[in-house]
């Protein structure tokens, strides 16, 4: 099968944005930013004019999650803050705010399928569970030995899983507050000179819940971090590695986010050296040799997008949004615009829709 994509629309924010996500109702697209703000765009109607920002954060806002049935967005920032807002209306209400939920960078949020709890993780090595209703801390899960980067929740069992900067994945027993088992994804980590490189950047369960996919890079070096985008799949029951594929070259570096499309393909986005980026549709059921990427496994690869940092599937299960970084984003030394201003980069967000057809070959 082959996949073709149509870009429906492009949103062009004036500055860089992180992790654009559709709300479960599909009425909004919400993205984090570099200045402690959440940005909203309406997805109903024809206009994509940005709405009033949601305030209350500090630093970077990269962790975003939603209540499955209520109009609540949960967001975490790089200063350790965790907040809940009603995302509707002209002036979104802050429902609760925990400014020091974590000691330092809050990296990820995952929301339980029933909407009653959420989990967060971050720089303090902790995974913490909270009541979505009032932001009350209910549990602190300790077991990681380094920064915790990513979270996922099994849709059926609501089992929480976390991945860290050294490539360790922990499956938690929330009733006991202990770790049930650990998966080894240390291929995603390298200590290079003085620097830890890599880690589990993202995780997603297969639609049938039988496989956990973790994404990151096979690191080659630090400083100007280099590596090959890598996805590893673990059998959920046994923990045995059942999938291990590289996608791209050394300069493509990180798989930043993954999500399964309703057509069954695993969508993944990568970002590496400035200007490089991939949008991938991966057939995880196709069989290829170890480390290889057969054409049958990769029905679609777009490497024209620049630095893709997030992907979000619309609740219609078909359209999706990819957050990128403007081309020509790098450069040494002073670069001023024609008016003499020092300009930053921005993050074009592409709204896309796939169509699947029989392979021409």
């Amino acid at each position, binding site marked *: 099968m082959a996949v073709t994509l149509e870009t429906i629309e492009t949103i062009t924010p004036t500055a860089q944005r992180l992790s654009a996500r559709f709300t479960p109702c599909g009425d909004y697209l919400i993205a984090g930013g570099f200045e402690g703000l959440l940005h909203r765009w309406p997805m109903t109607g024809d206009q994509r004019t940005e709405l009033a920002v949601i305030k209350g954060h*500090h630093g970077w806002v990269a962790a975003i999650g939603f209540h499955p049935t209520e109009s609540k967005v949960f967001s975490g920032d790089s200063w350790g803050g965790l907040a809940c807002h009603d995302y509707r209306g002209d002036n979104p209400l802050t429902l609760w705010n925990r400014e020091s939920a974590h000691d330092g960078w809050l990296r990820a949020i995952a929301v339980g399928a029933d909407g009653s709890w959420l989990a967060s993780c971050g720089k303090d090595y902790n995974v913490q569970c909270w009541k979505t209703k009032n932001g009350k801390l209910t549990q602190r899960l300790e077991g990681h030995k380094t920064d915790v980067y990513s979270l996922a929740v099994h849709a059926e069992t609501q089992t929480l899983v976390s991945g860290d900067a050294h490539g360790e994945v922990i499956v938690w027993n929330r009733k006991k507050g202990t770790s049930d088992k650990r998966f080894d994804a240390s291929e995603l980590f390298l200590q290079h000179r*003085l620097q830890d490189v890599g880690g589990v950047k993202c995780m997603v369960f297969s639609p049938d819940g039988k496989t956990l996919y973790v994404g990151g890079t096979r690191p080659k070096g630090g400083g100007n*971090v280099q590596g090959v985008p890598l996805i590893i799949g673990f059998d959920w029951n046994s923990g045995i590695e059942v999938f291990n594929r590289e996608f791209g070259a050394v300069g493509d570096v990180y798989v930043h986010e993954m999500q399964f499309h309703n057509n069954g393909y695993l969508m993944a986005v990568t970002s590496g050296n400035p200007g490089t980026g991939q949008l991938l549709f991966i057939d995880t059921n196709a069989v290829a040799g170890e480390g290889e990427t057969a054409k049958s496994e990769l029905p679609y690869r777009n490497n024209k997008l620049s630095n893709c940092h997030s992907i979000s599937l619309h609740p219609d299960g078909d359209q999706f949004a990819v957050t990128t970084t403007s081309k020509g984003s790098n450069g040494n*030394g002073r670069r001023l615009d024609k008016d003499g201003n020092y300009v930053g980069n921005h993050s074009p967000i592409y709204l896309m829709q796939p169509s699947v057809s029989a392979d021409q070959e």
Partner: protein
Amino acid sequence: MKPKINLHSSVSKQLCTPAQHVLSRRRLLGATAASGLLGMDGLGGLVHPLVADELSQSNKQVLFIWIDGGMSQLESWDPKPNTKFGGPFRSIQTSLPGVRISELMPKTAEIMHLLALDRGVTTVDNSHSAGVPRIQRGDPKDRGVIYPYFGSAVAKLMGQGNSQLPPYIWVKPGSGGFKYQDAGFLGPRYGALAIGDGQPPPNLLLPETLNHDDNSSRNRLRNFANAQYAAGRNPIFGEAQSFVFDSAQALMNRQALFADPDPADVELYGDTELGRDMLIGRKMLEAGVRFVKVNSYGWDTHGDNFNGHASLMPRFDQSFTAIVLDLQQRGMLDNTLVVAMSEFGRTPRINGHVGRDHWPEAWSIVMTGTGIRRGVVIGETNKTGIFVENDAHDIGDFFHTWFSALGIDSSKTEYLNNGQPLPIAHDECGPIKGLLT
């Protein structure tokens, strides 16, 4: 009575007109005549040898921490949290009231009252290949010669002191050996002896099969051959070779410098590459080495800058704080100039690889120790950290400042290169008074 050779104005200068810095024919002739009178000529001499004699008796030393690749000023000394280019990290209060640095440096924050920080560094090179040598040479005015690195300059100006150890030792990851290139026109004698990966220089230790008598016989033969070779040749080459050999001999007698570290020291400095090298640096200073450079690599964070600094900074934070406090506790900080710096800072703009590129426009240098005022912050960048707003300083100003801190009057001291007097630092710059005691 010391000969009075006052070739330069002694007035500290920040900004001067180019006309003030043209080396006049009169000055040139004066310098040449003076050097002739004193019998000092040839490669890498000093116009004022008695100054050198005096300096050689000084017990002042230098620890120069070179953070290769470019530490981000925004993730270290000059954070701008919650701004467009400020990055994800918080700032924290330091021991100096009103002064905040990045949360990635909690230990350094506790010793800020011991440090002098300049946030107004403005230089010109935005490439490593140009920036590393030009910065370490003080970016002098082009006079058709290759200036020495700071370490070689101090080795020349202050000598090896009483330790008889090499005056310029470079502790670094990777390979070791003798790096004569640092010396520029001063000649190979003033190059750096590099200690790579914590190991003594190759073949430093006598082989077990060679006893003391045999070694002495070999040395007599070597001296004889050297004398034969040197006859009729410019003496500086033989002198350089003998000097380096003698220094290596002195190092051979100090094998304890390369012994396994005390576990308590490892805990203090950190069980990391940089911790190891800082600890070796301290041992070298303790042994009397005049100038010790400690290198840290891996800071060229064009990609994944923030995770990179989250990982790099704690290692710097621990080892830097450890050595400053260690020197203080050993009573050495008052005699040791400590400088930590890179070849430039990193761009405020964040690129698509979530990295920062090279930025010489506005960055920071930190220092402490002998001659340096403690607990001061000078220089100021604007709200978003893009440009220096107040009190900008170029690297030439810092060279004047550091020479002054070491007791070297850069307005009066000059090199003499084949009859050509050369200022020891950029003659359009001057010492930064706010950093000096």
